[in-house]
Each structure stands twice: as C-alpha cells, then as structure tokens.
C-alpha cells in the first residue's frame, strides 16, 4: 500500500495535473500535494499522486556514504 515509485516528470499543467515517465511508460499524476515541481524533476508517485520530490544531491551523498561503509576494512 505504501508502495511508491520514483518517476520523472514529463509534463505539468496549471491545474497541477501532469504525466510522469516510469520505466519508459507515461502515467498520469496529480501534483497538488507538492509545493513546487517542474518537468525533468524526479518525484515519488503513490496512488496517482506525486508525494515527494527527489533530491539529487542527497542521493549522491547517500551513495558516497554507502561506498565508504562498504569499503571499510576489518579493524
């Protein structure tokens, strides 16, 4: 139920309805729950609603943390 997927915004109109690209498929999405969003942004879509914007910088930071933890040697 809380399954939600990352998707990229393709289009967005003034009534805050739009389309996202999810794994190559275009799906309708409602953007009324987001303050700001524009085509090209990545969002998390759940039950037809974009519920959160994905932050590229934070994603990169998590990745570098992962690499660091994963490569730490046994003491």
């Amino acid at each position, binding site marked *: 139920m*809380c399954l939600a997927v990352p998707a990229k915004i393709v289009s967005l109109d003034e009534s805050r309805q739009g389309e996202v690209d999810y794994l190559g498929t275009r799906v309708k999405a409602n953007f009324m729950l987001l303050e700001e969003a524009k085509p090209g942004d990545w969002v998390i879509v759940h039950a037809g609603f974009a519920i959160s914007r994905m932050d590229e910088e934070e994603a990169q930071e998590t990745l570098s943390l992962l690499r660091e933890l994963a490569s*730490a040697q046994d003491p």
Partner: protein
Amino acid sequence: MKEFRDRKVLAGLLRSIGRRAEQVGPPVRMMEVCGTHTMTIHRFGLQPLLEKAGVVMTSGPGCPVCITPDAYHEAAIGLMTRRPDTILATFGDMTRVPTRQGSLQTAIPAQGSRLKIVYSPQEVLETARQNPGREVVFFGVGFETTIPSIALTVKQAAQEQLSNFSVLSALWIIPPPLRAILESGEVRLQGFLYPGHVSAIIGLRPYAFVAEEFGLAGAVAGFEPADILLAVSSVLDQIIRKKPAVANEYSRVVREEGNPRARALMEEVLELKDAHWRGLGLIPKSGLKIKDSFGAWDAEKKHGLKLDPGSAELPGCRCGEVLRGVLAPPLCGLFGRKCRPESPLGPCMVSLEGACLVYYKYSRP
C-alpha cells in the same frame, strides 16, 4: 540507482553491520515497521544474511490492508447487499480479504451493485461524475502515505458538490501502534526501521518519543536493499554510542519536516479518532475520520454504517500476532497449508506487503 543493489556494496555493508552487531551483542532485534520494507528484506534475501551478521528483523504492523479489522469489510458488504445501486470502489488487495461474510469479491451483493478496483482515489471521483444516478462509495484504506490523496479527493468532491460520492475511511496513522507495541513489552526490540514513504509526509518528529521516552534507536529507511542495510547500520551505531535518535537514511526523499502541504490537507478534512487495529486492539488517537464539516461525504454517516469493533476474525488466523511482531508467519499452523495465496484465511496472506504473503513468496522454510 543500480549501486543501491550492487553485490559488492551490499556485501561490504553486511560486513560492517556484522562488526557493529558484534559490539552490541548479537542477536540484535529490530522491527521493520513497514510492509514494503518487509518485501525488500525478503525479496532480496536479506533476512538470512542479516541473521548471519547478528541482526534479527521482525515484521511490524505496517500493512494497512492487514490491520483493518473485518468490521470495515462487513460494513461494506452490508452496504452493497442493501443498496442495489451502489458502486463500491477500493484498492485491489482489499477485495480479497476473507471475513465471516466472505470477501468483497465472494460475498453475494444485491443485484446491480458493483465492485470496482482502483489504483487512485481520483478514479473514483471520475466514476461518481459519470454515474450521477448511483451511489459511489470509496472504501479508502491507508497510512499517511495515502491519506493526503484521499483527503484531497474528499475536498474536491465537496467543491464540486458531488452528492453521490462518499468515503468509508479505514485510515490509520503509524506512530501510535509503535507506542502500543513498546508499552505492551510483548516483543523485545532494540531499534526500529521507520517507513520511508509515511515519513515523506509526517517527517521525523512524530517518532521522537521512541528515542526520548523508550530510549530506542531508529532510522527512516528507503526501499532498495542498500537503503535497508544503511538504516540497520545507523541503528547499530546509535546503540553503540548510546545515543538513540531518529536518523534519516532516506534523505533523497524524506525531509525533516515531511510534506507540510499534504499534512495541511489531512488536517483540513480529517480528525483523529480512537481506533481498533487488528491484533493491537483499541489504540487512542490512531485513526482518522472525516470532519463534520465534510460529513456529507462520510459514508459511515451518509449510509448509517455500523463498524462493530467486536467482529471476530476467521478461526485459527494469527495475523494479529504477526502484526504485533510476536509470531513469524511460518510458525502459524495454517501457513502454507490451509492458508495460501490462492485461498487466504487472513489479510496478511492477501496483501502484497502482508508478512505472510511475503514469507510465502520469498522465505518459505
């Protein structure tokens, strides 16, 4: 994103988890609250790997289809039986939950009433617009991830004065059952993985009591295998440093303050109520109902639905114990025998994120 599933990264993370768990003293017991996390943990085979590293994961109450008591289904079945013109719409999993009166799919409704499976509450509004002569009821179930979209849908119906639309709300909020589980002391836990998408809405603050009052570590996790391991590692770090907190290990999606716009909508349309959870019983202020100002769109009021909290579950089903984290699904006598995905005896074997179905698909002994 591939790196979140990279074998080398995952192996390295598991080694670092092993070292930390050794410091804490294995086995370290944690609960993943969210059913979608249970899915990731089992689908990617993390459960045995984590156990080998000294961490035992227990599935929690985070499956809204599972924790909704049968009373809600029986009220919906009752409505469809009484009102021949009803169209009842809901999410797919809900239609297969077995009750003493059958499931929404198998109970025999009045001639002419219709069951419709939807992906989004917005589809139900459209159905109501297209069928002005019929009653359209949305059986809306969900946690904070889903609730704002349902609140918005009710508000839109009110703005349009769509008088044939109403919502039977089975809406639950996540922090109160965590308190209930901790207060009962039934299951010994050293930390929580908090749900990622619920947290995208509510932020971090609502979990603070777990660290402050109960001294337990916790971290918000994403849904890739590396996200889970990162959060487990963070919980272990907190235990080692004796600094329980609410860490955010899904910061690419979750902000500390959550999604204020979505929460404002919830507050505008809905209000807290004491609610019964399957397996957990009555929990104060753990559910949401439609406010009186939107009462015309509340199916309970509009159709005089009675939610009988005493309605019993099917005999033998131990879904309630699974939801409290006291029983692993394979230890239920019905699991995989009488209770199977094609003939489920409880919602935990129906929902895609129900612990029983997840174990059946990926971790059958």
